[in-house]
């Protein structure tokens, strides 16, 4: 094999501009290098995550290559030496327009009321190509596929343009296998097996299909009206919690640069919207660390004594997409994940017990709303085990995108809001809790606390750079005062599968594993502002999260004064009986849940 030093290059001309590129480069990438933005629709490339979708299916990106009879799709055609390419000849522009007209001919024209309106790649493309009429649309047959509403995601396949991005995310990146292209010709759709509803498929509700859908075919279930109804009901005390990843992304919806932290404005907006108490899921993240960290140390103690049933490695359990994934795919390992509930659910359980008692409000009169970067959280909040006598611990979970809509509807000038602080007691949090939003963050937070509790010593450094980064699977060994703690990290469910297969086969050398379902962690969640294929946005959000951690006066969970108070006044010790009752859960074998519905 030759070294990478001798990279082969070739020269070509695009729109009369000379360019030299590495052999194997596509015309699309070569053109973009020259600042020529060839339009694309089905193509998507998340560079930093190594995720690419290029079925070459939509044909919007066709260009004219001199000497070739047919136009070539730029996204899948590799550059040839000496090629002369034109990206906007009359022939190309005509073809592009015709392709677009065909795509639009059977597409619903209800853009005015479509949930994707204003964020739709198809709408943008129609606008960019100046499509003002669609020949033959009066005779075009329209698809009338049934709408499928699950607890988290709505599928409206009449709006599907068969770009196959969702299919790629579901199968190649997440290895969930809920979706596939089925049927053929005009009847072709992307659907679960036997065209059942998503609910009866192995779908984890991670929402990565929604995050990449260019149209209104895949959207989240909108709960903003339910929240508004609760806010205006004078008999209800409405408590809101916001996840860490939300503050690092919400600003994008209001034109701010990706990576702008809007924590203070977010609190102000929620107060403006009329929530009675504005709290932070980060408080519950600190609580999670107390419970999960204690559980880790407990299992580790057994393991070091040679107990075979110690259940090492321990797996994190904060991510509901991940929980759904192992319930469907690894039910035989359901004793391995931590029994700690996710921060969202811990928050709900504490709000409706400890806090409700404190302010003397009956459970039924309290409504807990969560703002999440996530669509799986909607499903999680509806799990029957997370309710008391039919009253859920978390009543409604809305996404970052839904919150942005809500803020706009309420005439709130987000950009000019003052910075406000969370209410107490459930609004206090540490830097350890903030980093829950990034891949590697939960385990870093756990290490900070577990180290100090295990060794009885103060950490000399709090930044564990070896646990950070965007690589899909990472590993690190942290010295616990002579004991080498092996840590594994995976983000994206396909990467999680690799670590899980090792655990199942008894090959895993890790003591603790963190898994987040979404690429990048919660900052890349299915409920976040759409990245439209730009992975630098995810990186900017991750940086913002670490910045917030740095700026926090307290950066280890066990030093959160309000957490200490919560244990003193209410829970007793971490992993106490009361803590177990309120803050821990158990898992189910969902393999058999895949029902064939007639």
């Amino acid at each position: 094999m030759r070294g990478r030093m001798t990279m082969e290059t070739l020269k070509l001309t695009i729109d009369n501009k000379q360019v030299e590129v590495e052999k194997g480069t596509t015309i699309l990438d070569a053109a973009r290098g020259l600042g020529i933005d060839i339009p694309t629709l089905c193509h998507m490339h998340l560079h930093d995550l190594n995720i690419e979708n290029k079925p070459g299916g939509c044909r919007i990106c066709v260009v004219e290559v001199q000497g070739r009879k047919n136009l070539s799709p730029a996204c899948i055609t590799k550059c040839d030496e000496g090629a002369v390419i034109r990206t906007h000849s009359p022939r190309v522009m005509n073809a592009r327009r015709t392709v677009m007209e065909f795509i639009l001919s059977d597409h619903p024209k209800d853009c005015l009321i479509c949930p994707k309106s204003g964020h739709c790649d198809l709408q943008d493309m129609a606008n960019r190509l100046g499509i003002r009429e669609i020949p033959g649309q009066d005779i075009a047959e329209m698809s009338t596929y049934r709408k499928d509403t699950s607890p988290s995601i709505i599928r409206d396949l009449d709006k599907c343009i068969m770009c196959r991005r969702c299919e790629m995310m579901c199968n190649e990146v997440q290895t969930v296998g809920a979706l596939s292209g089925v049927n053929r010709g005009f009847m072709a759709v992307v659907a679960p097996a036997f065209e059942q509803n998503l609910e009866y498929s192995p779908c984890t509700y991670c929402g990565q299909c929604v995050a990449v859908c260019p149209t209104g075919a895949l959207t989240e279930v909108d709960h903003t009206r339910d929240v508004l109804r609760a806010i205006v009901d004078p008999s209800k005390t409405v408590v809101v919690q916001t996840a860490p990843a939300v503050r690092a992304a919400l600003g994008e919806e209001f034109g701010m640069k990706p990576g702008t932290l809007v924590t203070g404005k977010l609190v102000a907006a929620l107060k403006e919207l009329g929530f009675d108490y504005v709290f932070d899921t980060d408080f519950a993240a600190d609580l999670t660390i107390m419970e999960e960290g204690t559980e880790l140390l407990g299992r580790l103690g057994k393991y070091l004594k040679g107990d075979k049933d110690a259940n090492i490695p321990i797996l994190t359990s904060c991510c509901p997409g991940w929980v759904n994934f192992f319930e469907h795919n690894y039910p035989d390992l359901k004793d391995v994940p931590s029994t700690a509930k996710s921060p969202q659910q811990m928050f709900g359980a504490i709000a409706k017990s400890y806090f409700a008692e404190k302010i003397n409000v009956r459970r039924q009169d309290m409504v807990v709303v969560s703002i999440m970067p996530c669509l799986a959280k909607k499903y999680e909040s509806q799990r029957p085990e997370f309710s008391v006598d039919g009253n859920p611990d978390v009543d409604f979970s809305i996404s970052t995108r839904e919150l942005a809509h809500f803020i706009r509807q309420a005439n709130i000038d987000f950009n000019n809001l003052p910075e406000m602080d969370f209410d107490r007691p459930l609004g206090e949090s540490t830097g350890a809790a903030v980093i829950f939003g990034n891949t590697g963050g939960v385990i870093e937070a756990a290490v900070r606390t577990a180290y100090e509790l295990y060794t009885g010593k103060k950490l000399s450094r709090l930044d564990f750079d070896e646990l950070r980064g965007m690589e899909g699977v990472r590993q690190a060994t942290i010295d616990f005062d002579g004991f080498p703690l092996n840590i594994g990290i995976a983000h994206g469910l396909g990467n999680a599968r690799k670590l899980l297969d090792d655990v199942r086969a008894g090959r895993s050398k890790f003591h603790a594993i963190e898994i987040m379902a979404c690429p990048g962690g919660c900052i890349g969640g299915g409920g976040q502002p759409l990245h439209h294929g730009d992975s630098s946005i995810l990186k900017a959000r991750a940086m913002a999260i670490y910045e917030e951690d740095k700026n926090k006066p307290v950066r280890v969970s066990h030093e959160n004064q309000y957490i200490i108070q919560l244990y003193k006044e209410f829970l007793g010790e971490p992993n106490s009986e009361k803590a177990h009752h309120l803050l821990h859960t158990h898992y189910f074998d969902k393999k058999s849940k895949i029902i064939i519905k007639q």
Partner: protein
Amino acid sequence: MSSIKIELRKEDVDKINEICDSFNNEPLELINILHKTQEHFGYLPAEVQEAIASRLNISTARVYGVVTFYSFFTMTPKGKHPISICMGTACYVRGAEKVLDEFKKELSIQVGQTTPDGKFSLSSLRCVGACGLAPVVLVGEKTYGRVAPDDVQAILKEYE
């Protein structure tokens, strides 16, 4: 989508596994595996597709995608007397479509379906090489030539 709920017996599962094994459980051989399996069961009900997916360690959605892409594969068991109407060029221009419509009307089923009593199923095919007899209808192994819509009732009566 229409499928009949069946309970797979142990020998059915064993047969599916045997077919998959004979192709080294290779997902790229899915089409051949489906072929062999349909040959054995006569059709590919949902449970059979799930068993194949599980054996090959691929998603059931992917198996279903292939089953629904190729018209040769069917999720409906064929009737006791499968009826095929040739829709090749010669038969078509001599009125095969009208004959097909008559069968649909008489049996109250569409192409690809089976009557609720399991007696007849309806399919269309392309050219049986008997263009001189157009339009041609096959019922099981028996061939009927120069069929007119008016003949349909009489043909069906033969099988009562």
